[in-house]
């Protein structure tokens, strides 16, 4: 079966692990549990009546002390840049990571995932900024790992982009 590696990158505590838990296992936990190293999951998806295995690499979140190890990204067909909408700094971190990832693995499809949409009252990123990025050709999906909103859409979008490249 066709398989594609997809990496989740972003600042710490943006919800990368929770998005995968929601997508792969249909579960969510309120408790924040940091990722050490990388956790790898697999899920079979359908696209245009074809089956595809997504190999999902959930990389530890970058912080000021620990940079993401770029060797984890080797062989990735796509990546998801995950942002916590309630923390503006995580969007800035995502911009930096996007440049680093592209330098490492070249231009491959990616989606900017604006997570924690269930906390929209607390968001620090305004709609104009998101619209600007959309106009620049970025694919952006708002998600909530807690409610499940947008989660399937993210993985469908990235699958479509990988297969149509």
């Amino acid at each position, binding site marked *: 079966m066709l*398989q594609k*590696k997809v990496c989740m990158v972003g600042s710490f505590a943006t919800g990368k692990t929770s998005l995968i838990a929601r997508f792969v296992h249909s579960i969510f936990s309120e408790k924040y549990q*940091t990722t050490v*190293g*990388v956790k*790898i999951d*697999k899920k079979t998806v359908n696209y245009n009546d074809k089956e595809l295995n997504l190999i999902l690499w959930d990389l530890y*979140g970058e912080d000021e002390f620990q940079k993401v190890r770029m060797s984890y990204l080797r062989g990735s067909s796509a990546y998801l840049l995950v942002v916590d909408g309630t923390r503006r700094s995580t969007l800035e971190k995502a911009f930096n990571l996007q440049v680093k990832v592209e330098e490492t693995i070249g231009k491959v499809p990616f989606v900017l995932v604006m997570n924690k949409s269930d906390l929209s009252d607390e968001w620090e990123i305004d709609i104009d900024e998101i619209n600007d990025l959309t106009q620049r050709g970025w694919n952006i999906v708002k998600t909530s790992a807690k409610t499940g909103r947008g989660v399937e859409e993210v993985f469908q979008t990235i699958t479509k982009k990988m297969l149509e490249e």
Partner: protein
Amino acid sequence: MLELPTPVISYLIALLLENRSLAYLLVQKDGALSAWGGKLAAYGVGNLQKGRNIGQQVFFLEGLLPLDDVSLFLPRLKTEEGICADVHIFSSEEGDWVLLLDATVDEMQLSLIQQHANELSLSQEKISRVLNQ
């Protein structure tokens, strides 16, 4: 290269085998698995078939092979089925070698520190937000 007496090397190898659940895979440049051994079951790896593509058998290796000349180190890699592993990949004339070493202790220690540090950072961010309002 550092010259070490044979008993020292033997002791170190025994220590590695006992404490870090050494396992290995040998993969041809076309992706076909050619040999394997060690404690692969600890990492959730089993039912291997010689000659079959490695990515189809060990899903976490999808996209990583074949290796260029430079060796690869992937620390603290974990799947649902197995324990946390340090993965070392290097090339030789026979093909690409994949070594797996138990990293559970390392993961547990780092996890405690990282969890504490991240929770502290989140609290500081929250306080800064409140003060800036």
